């Protein structure tokens, strides 16, 4: 059976490799030839997961993709005419579905295949001296219930349109949760104990109750857990979804004490508190939902937030920073102050936000607050930019000195970069 996402001239069926319309355990042999480089890093994880799902245990997967190492070596050694061909091999063609979105060196290919659930991975190099050097991986599907559940989980996320496979950062954020869930399943073996179930509930609720809800639906069919237990967890996750728990988590993070340089620690403290909350909910404390419902009214509702991770907080902080810098450039100081303070509340380590807010405070005449922010910049620079800390410190200290001398006009523009 030959499938292709775009072509029907040669392919038997038009079908996307991330959403295969086949049941589990159908195929004993799959060839995936020159496909994954067209998908991108995130999408290829889901493609391999789908292939895993539809294969029988022990089935063989043969995968080929351009060999980047040998391609670049050839590129360096050869002439212009050959280089053009090698460039097409590395980057693909500029037509729908033909461009290459990512590359897979041997070590990355082995890791992705292994994490998907394939074993006995053998790597061969084909056509190494040509303009089309290829790396070929041959592997077998491990007979693993845990990996099969995870592949079902990924499939369901795609089928229900819960995730956007074009958003690579979000997908890779989600991989952190999926890896945790996989580890839990592998540890659990044939039965998920109460401890395992509690852990899955906690980690998935803290990431996204909706994702957690879907995961429990997937493991319902696996006989690892009783129907009653699944229903209880799904009920808790539904309640958390109803109160928009992810947005509450972001709000709570913004309300945590501002601790420059302690972004990760603040995040972990909040996570720890919320684990306690989820545990209380699990034990039947209904006041938790009432409190969260009240808190929901205080949250911002200006943009969708799907997950709660440090990566998401950093992304939101960057967006607020961009708005703050734009407002500063337009001399809208009040708006700039609001956006930049918001950025700092989302990412306590964002040096460039502190620096910009210092300048905004200078322009607004709030000199003491400006000096405090400048001091924070110096403290953060000492920790985050070890090699350039002296140079950056000198820049900031010079700026402080000029501000104290009253030369505010020199800093009426935003800092765009720390370079």
């Amino acid at each position: 059976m030959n499938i292709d996402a775009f072509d029907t001239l040669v392919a038997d069926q038009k079908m996307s490799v991330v959403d295969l319309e086949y049941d589990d355990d159908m195929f004993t042999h799959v060839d995936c030839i020159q496909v994954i480089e067209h998908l991108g890093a995130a999408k290829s994880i889901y493609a391999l997961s789908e292939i895993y799902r539809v294969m029988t245990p022990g089935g063989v997967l043969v995968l080929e993709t351009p060999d980047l190492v040998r391609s670049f070596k050839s590129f360096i050694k050869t002439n212009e005419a050959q280089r053009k061909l090698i460039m097409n091999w590395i980057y693909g063609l500029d037509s729908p579905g033909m461009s290459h979105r990512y590359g897979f060196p041997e070590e990355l290919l082995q890791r992705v295949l292994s994490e998907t659930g394939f074993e006995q991975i053998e790597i061969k190099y084909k056509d190494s001296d040509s303009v089309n050097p290829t790396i070929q991986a041959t592997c077998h599907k491990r007979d693993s219930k845990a990996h099969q559940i995870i592949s079902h989980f990924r499939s369901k996320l795609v089928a229900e349109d819960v995730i956007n496979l074009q958003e690579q950062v979000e997908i890779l954020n989600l991989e952190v949760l999926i890896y945790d869930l996989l580890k839990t399943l592998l540890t659990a073996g044939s039965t998920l104990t109460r401890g395992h179930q509690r852990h899955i509930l906690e980690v998935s609720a803290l990431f996204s109750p909706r994702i957690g809800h879907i995961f429990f639906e997937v493991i319902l069919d696996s006989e690892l857990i009783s129907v009653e237990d699944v229903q209880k967890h799904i009920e808790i996750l539904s309640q958390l979804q109803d109160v928009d728990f992810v947005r509450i988590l972001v709000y709570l993070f913004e309300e945590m004490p501002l601790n420059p340089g302690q972004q990760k620690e603040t995040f972990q403290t909040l996570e720890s508190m919320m684990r306690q909350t989820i545990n209380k909910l699990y034990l039947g404390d209904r006041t938790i939902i009432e409190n969260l419902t009240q808190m929901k009214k205080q949250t911002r509702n200006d943009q969708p937030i799907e997950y709660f991770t440090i990566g998401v907080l950093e992304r939101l902080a960057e967006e607020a920073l961009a708005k703050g810098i734009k407002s500063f450039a337009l001399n809208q100081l009040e708006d700039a102050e609001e956006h930049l303070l918001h950025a700092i509340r989302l990412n306590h380590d964002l040096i460039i936000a502190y620096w910009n807010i210092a300048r905004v405070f200078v322009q607004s005449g709030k000199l003491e607050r400006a000096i405090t922010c400048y001091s924070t910049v110096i403290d953060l620079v000492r920790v985050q930019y070890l090699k350039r800390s002296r140079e950056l410190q000198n820049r900031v200290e010079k700026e402080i000195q000029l501000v104290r001398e009253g030369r505010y006009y020199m800093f009426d523009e935003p800092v765009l970069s720390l370079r």
Partner: protein
Amino acid sequence: MISILQFFLPKIMMIKRVLPDTQTSMLDRLVNRQQMSKQQLSKIHQLGRNIGLDREEITAAIDRPQSGVQKGGLSNNRFFRGITIASILIIAIGVILIVWYFVGPESSPIHTYTPGTDYGSIKPRDFASTDSLYC
């Protein structure tokens, strides 16, 4: 004690990047213990109460000794043990940094073209060659 940790904080942050997660958490707890003010703790407690947590639960979440519960010999032992561990850690970090400064990876970087690596077979004359590899 606080000023010693603050002084070494940049180097500690550098070491943290290469430590396993469990040890970075331990290091964080040692460093953090010095850094949260009363006001900050009070704010966290307020947030926790708003969610519905009680004092013990909030304290457990931020990993600090509870007042009125752990006073006396037990908390003193833990305090001095903490001081001892922190001191040993600081001395160890100092030694590692000194050794690292003289013999660290940056002082003798791995050369891209070291024989035995993939790039090792490329020679400078390859760039000047006009012969096609494939003619």
